[in-house]
């Protein structure tokens, strides 16, 4: 192809390269997840990426778009990976396939494919799964070093048939879920980090996983794939909001520390809300968006019916993005 207009020089990383760096950023967090929740995460990841590529291939074929160009851009792989990491390691395979279907086909390609999706594809997949299969989606194994008592046969059995027919003892509620139930039932709960209660092992695992995602996030920031606006505003807002509630009544509300280091807070901060396509583009808009997500995450976590609000919060704020973008235009040079 001949370039006939200026500029005639350019220097920019390609989309594929950016997506590859995002995948690299995901590595530490994924490894931590695998360490605590078992090899199931890897199985999820593999099946998600494979199905995503298959879906991508077929939809590109149907839409008559250049297949090689769009398959190699890597966006499908990133979306599928984010979805897979959010799904419990003991979920059966069809959960992943359904999730990937909604991620790739509905959220991405119906809207025009790469660059046109209004919503975060991975979060659409996750929200659909959470609403449709709440039992499966909230059942995580007890965090322990699952690599040591690794049992491939059992894992595959779970993967194929689901947990129901295998064992019940491996699963338990997530900490946020547990605390919410306790509060609802007016029972005391423990958030002590030294005692050997299951809830504590959860937190210890959570903290390490969160830190691993943080490392990946910092890597992406150094590589200039993301700017500080989104993750920092998100984390600070969440900390601030939870601090306010916590200071008002520390018996009813959890400390900001727990909010920051549980669930997928850091995954969300660095990998989910930083999706450029469905997020805002202006610096002010990014701050606004991240604050909105933080507020909604907190509201849904604390007052809502679902244990984790990230997916809903992100999609809800995605809806607001066009409006946010148009209202937060930076001042053009020379304009007052």
């Amino acid at each position: 192809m001949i370039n006939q207009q200026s500029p005639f020089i350019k220097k920019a990383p390609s989309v594929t390269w950016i997506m590859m760096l995002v995948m690299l950023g995901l590595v530490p967090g994924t490894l931590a997840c695998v360490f605590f929740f078992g090899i199931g995460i890897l199985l999820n990841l593999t099946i998600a990426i494979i199905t995503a590529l298959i879906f991508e291939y077929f939809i590109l074929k149907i839409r008559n778009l250049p297949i090689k160009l769009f398959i190699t851009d890597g966006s499908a792989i990133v979306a599928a990976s984010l979805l897979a990491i959010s799904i419990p390691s003991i979920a059966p395979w069809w959960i992943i396939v359904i999730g990937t279907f909604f991620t790739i086909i509905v959220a991405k390609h119906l809207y025009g494919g790469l660059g046109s999706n209004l919503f975060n594809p991975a979060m659409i997949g996750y929200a659909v799964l959470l609403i449709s299969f709440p039992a499966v989606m909230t059942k995580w194994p007890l965090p322990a070093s699952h690599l040591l008592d690794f049992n491939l046969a059992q894992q595959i059995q779970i993967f194929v048939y689901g947990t129901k027919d295998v064992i019940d003892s491996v699963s338990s509620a997530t900490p946020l879920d547990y605390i919410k139930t306790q509060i609802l039932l007016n029972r005391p709960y423990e958030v002590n980090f030294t005692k050997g209660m299951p809830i504590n092992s959860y937190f210890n695992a959570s903290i390490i996983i969160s830190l691993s995602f943080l490392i990946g996030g910092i890597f992406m920031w150094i590589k200039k794939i993301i700017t500080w606006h989104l993750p920092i505003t998100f984390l600070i807002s969440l900390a601030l909001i939870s601090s306010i509630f916590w200071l008002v009544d520390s018996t009813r509300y959890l400390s900001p520390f727990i909010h920051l280091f549980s669930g997928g807070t850091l995954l969300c901060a660095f990998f989910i809300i930083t999706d450029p396509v469905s997020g805002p583009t202006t610096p002010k808009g990014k701050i606004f968006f991240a604050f909105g997500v933080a507020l909604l995450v907190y509201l849904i976590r604390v007052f809502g019916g679902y244990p984790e609000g990230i997916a809903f919060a992100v999609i809800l704020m995605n809806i607001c993005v066009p409006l946010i973008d148009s209202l937060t235009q930076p001042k053009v040079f020379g304009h007052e």
Partner: protein
Amino acid sequence: MKLLDKIFKFNGGIQAETKKDISTKKTIKSLPIPSEIRLPLRQHIGKMAKLRVKVGDQVLKGELIAEADGNISAAIHAPTSGKIKSIEKLLIPHPSGLPDFCVTLIPDNNDKWVKKFPIDWKNISLKETNKLLLNSGIVGLGGAAFPSHLKLGTNRNSPIKTLIINAAECEPYITCDDMLMRERGKDLIEGIELVQSLLGAEETIIGIEDNKLEAFKIISSLIEKKPNIYIKVVPTIYPSGDAKRLIFLINGIKIPKEKRSSEYGIQMFNVATIVAIFRFIQYGEPSLSRIVTITGNIKEPRNYEVLFGTPLRSLVKDAGGQKIKNNTFLMGGPMMGFTLPSIDVSVTKTMNCVISAEPEMIQVTEEPLPCIRCSKCAEACPVSLQPQELFWFSKSDQFEKAQNYNLFDCIECGCCSYVCPSNIPLVQFYRYAKSEIISQSIAAEEADIARERNDFRILRLDREKKERAERNAQRKAENTNTDKLKLIEEKRAEIAAAMDRIKNEKNI
């Protein structure tokens, strides 16, 4: 001489490889008179120059060939003595690749000057000097080609306080201003003093990028004893040489798109323009040649002093020809220039640089992908626009929205395309959208005129109809009137007769 330290910084910009050392190794060389000279009549912004010669005329060097048509226009002079061969439409260095009117001159190689009239500007009024400048043919030699007499004009509201000399030359590859400063610094400084007093400006600030160390040294030593001339070194960030960006870098004043710098008491000239003005006033030499950088994929890259109208072919030949043959040349820098339609176009007043295209410049290796809204372009935009939104609207023809996002503030500097990971030719989309909007607004203006004329016609037809009807009615009325009068008179006569009868009867 003073060195000003405080530098303001605009949003974004890019730091590309400057590649300037390619063409600064050799001194400026004068290109010999070519065998044929083709002068386009449109080498400037504004109206096409009005032709003053006809085919077969013998002209001397510096003789007027075409004069400025109105105020926003510039004259064109014969670069050397010779005979006018033809006046016809030929290819010109223009991105459209369409032909336009050109005067072809066959040089007689005598290079005989017409009588020169240096201007005694100290003893005549500014207005007269300005009038003389109208036919100097000098336009902004930085590439904008805005007629210089307008900038020196007297009819402005606010006095000029600061003269800024644009020596930034921010585009990669181009070195003509750099070399001019190195070799003709004295002319430049004298020219600056001249223009400064013409404008009545209090001070002059020379803005120069920090990659032109040698030129900086020469200029600073020349202005050491001049109290009102300052030099300000700006960082090498493209597009620091854009007029409004440079003013901001130097003064911290943000001039909006629709305003001129003179409204803020600032006037800016390119170094080459200053030298041209100096030569015209001091020696009476009109604008006949300029310094052109030829660089890139060429055997002997360097700067040439070239007569306007010289075919690009002879320039390329003198520079040894292309290293890798692809017959593609860019005019201007690699960021904002355009591909020349042919090697047969001639050098014009706007041609500051010719880049023999490197293969990777014209061959796009990676396919463009859709925009992923990464906003790298917004970070790079020196005007703080939202290029991703402008692209989104331009590609889907949503021009109104594009305008709401200030499409016309875009200076087409190309920073957005430079950093785009999706390889989207963003600037092309903006140019397309701007062109469309402009042509739509012209169409709307024409429609307004047509509507007015149609309304007028309807009014006229109505009036004519009414007038005709009135005339008819009047005629009719006139007819009936006479009838009535007759009737009345008859009646009166009858009554009178009757009365008479009664009287008579009574009397009886």
